C-alpha cells in the first residue's frame, strides 16, 4: 500500500467515524461528546455527584498531606526530604530517618537531632496505622481508647478500640476506595471490552465459545468466585483484591460490548474501512470501538460503584488486605464488634453509601445523556 492510499484511507476512516457519531453535521458544530456533556450538565444531582467524586479523588490523592504523622516537606541536616510519600509506599521513606532511629516520631526527633531543621506538616497530626501518644505533637493529648474515643477536638471522627484515629483512616481509606474503584473497573473494562468485541465482531464459533464463557462467569455467584480466588493467594495485598474484583466483574461490560458490535459491524463505515483493507483488529479498535463506547461507559460507571462496594464488603468480612491497611470496610468491621461506638459505623458507612450513590447517579446521567432513545423520552 503506498503512502497516498494510506492517507486516503485514514481520511475516509476518520470521516466515517465522524458520521457514525453524530450524523451529517455542518463543520464547527458540536460533536457527540460535547453534546452529551451539555445534557449531562443539566442534571443537577449528577453534577453534585461528579463534584463529590472529584473532591473525594483529590482527598484520596492528597491524603498524606491532610492527615499524617510524617512531614510533607522537611529540611534535615542540610537536605530536603518528603517523608509523607511513605504513605503511598513504605519503601519511599528516606533511609536517613531509619539510620537516625526516628521510629516514626518526627516532631520531637527533628528538633532534637537537628535544631536548625524545619518541616511543613499535614493539616491534622494523626496516623491511620497506629495510636498517637501523648505529647507526640506538642500539647496534643494521647488518643483515647475503647468507648472513650468519641469524636473530639483532636480526633474529629473519634478513635477505634485501639485508639487509632478514625478521621485519618477515613481520609487514607478514600485513597484505597479510589484505587480499588478505578483499577478493578479498569481491569474489568479491559477484559469485558476485549472479549465482547471479539465475540460480537467475529461471530460464529468464537461468539459461541465466548458467550458460554460469559454465561459461565455470570452463573457462579460473584462472592463465591472472589472468596475462592482470594483464598488461593497466600497473602492477598490490595492489588490482589483489585485484580480479583476486576476478573470477576467484566461480564456485564462484555455483554453490552458484544451487542454494540453486532449492531455496528454491518454498518457502512465498517464496510468502507474493510474495503480499504483495514485489518480486523484495526476495525475493532479504531473504527467500531469509539462508536460503541458511550453505552459501554454506563456499566463502567456502575462498575466503579460495585467495586468499591465489594472491596468494603470483603474488608468487612475480614477477607480484605491485611489489617494495617486503611479501608472503610475494615472500620465498619471494627464497628460491628463495638456497636455502641456509633462513630465507627456512622462515618465509614456514610462514606461508602455516598460514594456508591455518586457513581450510580453519574452512571445514570451518562446513560440518559448518550442514549438517544432515553433522550426523547425525557422531553
Amino acid at each position, binding site marked *: 500500500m503506498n503512502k497516498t492510499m494510506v492517507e486516503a484511507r485514514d481520511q475516509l476512516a476518520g470521516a466515517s467515524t465522524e458520521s457514525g457519531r453524530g450524523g451529517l453535521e455542518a463543520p464547527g458544530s458540536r460533536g457527540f461528546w460535547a453534546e452529551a456533556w451539555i445534557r449531562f450538565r443539566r442534571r443537577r444531582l449528577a453534577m453534585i455527584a461528579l463534584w463529590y467524586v472529584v473532591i473525594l479523588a483529590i482527598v484520596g490523592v492528597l491524603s498524606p498531606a491532610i492527615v499524617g504523622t510524617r512531614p510533607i516537606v522537611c529540611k534535615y541536616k542540610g537536605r530536603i526530604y518528603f517523608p509523607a510519600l511513605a504513605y503511598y509506599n513504605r519503601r519511599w521513606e528516606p533511609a536517613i530517618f531509619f539510620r537516625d532511629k526516628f521510629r516514626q516520631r518526627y516532631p520531637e526527633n527533628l528538633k532534637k537531632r537537628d535544631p536548625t531543621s524545619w518541616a511543613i506538616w499535614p493539616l491534622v497530626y494523626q496516623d491511620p496505622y497506629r495510636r498517637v501518644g501523648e505529647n507526640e505533637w506538642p500539647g496534643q493529648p494521647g488518643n483515647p481508647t475503647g468507648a472513650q474515643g468519641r469524636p473530639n477536638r483532636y480526633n474529629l471522627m473519634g478513635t477505634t478500640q485501639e485508639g487509632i484515629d478514625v478521621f485519618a483512616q477515613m481520609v487514607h481509606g478514600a485513597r484505597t476506595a479510589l484505587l480499588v474503584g478505578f483499577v478493578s473497573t479498569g481491569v474489568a473494562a479491559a477484559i469485558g471490552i476485549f472479549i465482547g468485541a471479539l465475540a460480537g465482531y467475529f461471530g460464529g464459533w468464537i461468539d459461541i465459545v465466548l458467550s*458460554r464463557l460469559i*454465561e*459461565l462467569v*455470570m*452463573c*457462579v*455467584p460473584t*462472592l*463465591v*468466585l472472589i*472468596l*475462592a*480466588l482470594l*483464598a*488461593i493467594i*497466600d497473602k492477598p495485598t490490595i492489588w490482589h483484591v483489585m485484580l480479583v474484583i476486576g476478573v470477576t466483574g467484566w461480564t456485564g461490560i462484555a455483554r453490552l460490548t458484544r451487542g454494540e458490535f453486532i449492531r455496528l459491524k454491518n454498518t457502512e463505515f465498517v464496510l468502507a474501512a474493510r474495503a480499504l483493507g483495514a485489518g480486523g483488529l484495526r476495525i475493532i479498535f479504531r473504527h467500531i470501538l469509539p462508536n460503541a463506547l458511550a453505552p459501554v461507559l454506563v456499566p463502567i460507571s456502575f462498575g466503579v*460503584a460495585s467495586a468499591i*462496594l465489594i472491596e*468494603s*464488603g470483603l474488608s*468487612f*468480612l475480614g477477607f480484605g488486605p491485611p489489617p494495617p491497611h486503611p479501608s472503610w470496610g475494615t472500620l*465498619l468491621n471494627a*464497628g*460491628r464488634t463495638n*456497636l*455502641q461506638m*456509633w462513630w465507627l*459505623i*456512622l462515618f465509614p*458507612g456514610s462514606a*461508602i*453509601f455516598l460514594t*456508591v*450513590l455518586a457513581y*450510580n*447517579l453519574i452512571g445514570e446521567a451518562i446513560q440518559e445523556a448518550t442514549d438517544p432513545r432515553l433522550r426523547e*423520552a425525557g422531553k
Partner: protein
Amino acid sequence: MLAYLVRRILIGLLTLVLITFVVYALIRNMPGTPLTYQLGETDPSRKIRPEDLERMKRAYGLDKPWYVAYFQWMGNLLRGDLGRSLSRKQAVSVLIGERIGPTLLLSATSLILAYLLSVPLGLYASVRNGTYDERIISTLLYMLYSLPSFVAALFLLSVFAMQLAGTPFELPLFGMYSDHFRELPFFGKVLDIMRHMFLPVLCYTYGSLAYFCRFVKSNMLEVIRQDYIRTARAKGVPPTRVVVVHAFRNTLIPFVTLVGLTLPGLLSGSVILEQIFAWPGMGRLFFEAITERDYPTIMGLVLMFSVLTLLGQLLADILYAVVDPRVTYS
C-alpha cells in the same frame, strides 16, 4: 418447544459441568486442607503422626490429584451422593437441608414483600410522574438502592439493639431464636422468630424493593406513551383501569423475567447479611465451609446455586412465551 427445552437443558448441563470443574480446581488449590485446618484448631501437643495423616488423606480422597478427585465427586453425584462434610462429619445433603429453611424464611418473606410493595408504589410513581411527591419517593428509593445492605444492617443494629435497649422496641442482636425459646408457647415461638427476623428481612427487602420499583416505573413510562393507551383514554376507560389493565399488563413481560432472575437469590442468601445477624442459613454455611476448607460442602452449595441460576434463566425464557403470545420457541 420441546426441542428448544431439550437443547437448553443440554447446554445448561454442559455449563454446570464447566462451573463445577472450575470451582473444584479453584478450591482444591487453596492453601491448606481440611486436615490442616482441624489440626490448627486442636492443641499443638496432640500432633497427628504422619502415617495417620496419610491414612486420613486417603480416607477423604485428598491423596489424589484434584482432577481425579473431581471425577470421583462427579461419579458420586450421578449416584445422588453429595458426599460427607469433612469438618462436620455429616452428609452434605443433610447439612444443606438444615440450613435451607432459615434462608428461605428470610429470602421468601422479603421477596414477597418486595413484589407486593413495589407494584403499587411503582404504579403510583409512574402515574404521578413529575409531581412533587413522586420526586420525593423516587429520590428516596434511589438512595435506598445505593445504600449497601451491610451498612444499613449495622445502622439498624446500633439503633434497635443498642440505643433502644430496654425499651419495648428493642430487637435482638443476632441469631434466630432466643435462649428460652423452648419454654415458649406456640405463639410465643412465632413471635420470637418474627422479632429475630425483622431486621434481616428489612435489610434484605429495601434494596430489591427500590430496584423493582424503578423497574416498574421505567417500563410503565415507556408503555404509557403508546397509542393504545391514548385510545383507551379517549374512549372513556376509567383512569385506574387504564393504568392497571391496559398499561401494567403490558409491562409484565420484563417483570416476569425479573422473577426468574431473582430465583437463585432465594437460596444463595446473602453471605454478608447472614454473617452479621448470625443467621443459621446457607450463606453462612458457605462462608464457614470456605474458611474450613470443607470441599464437599462448598461443592454442594456451588452446585445448588448454579443449578438455580440456570433454572431461573430457563424459567424466565419460558415465562416469556407464556405471557407474550408473540414469543414462540418452535
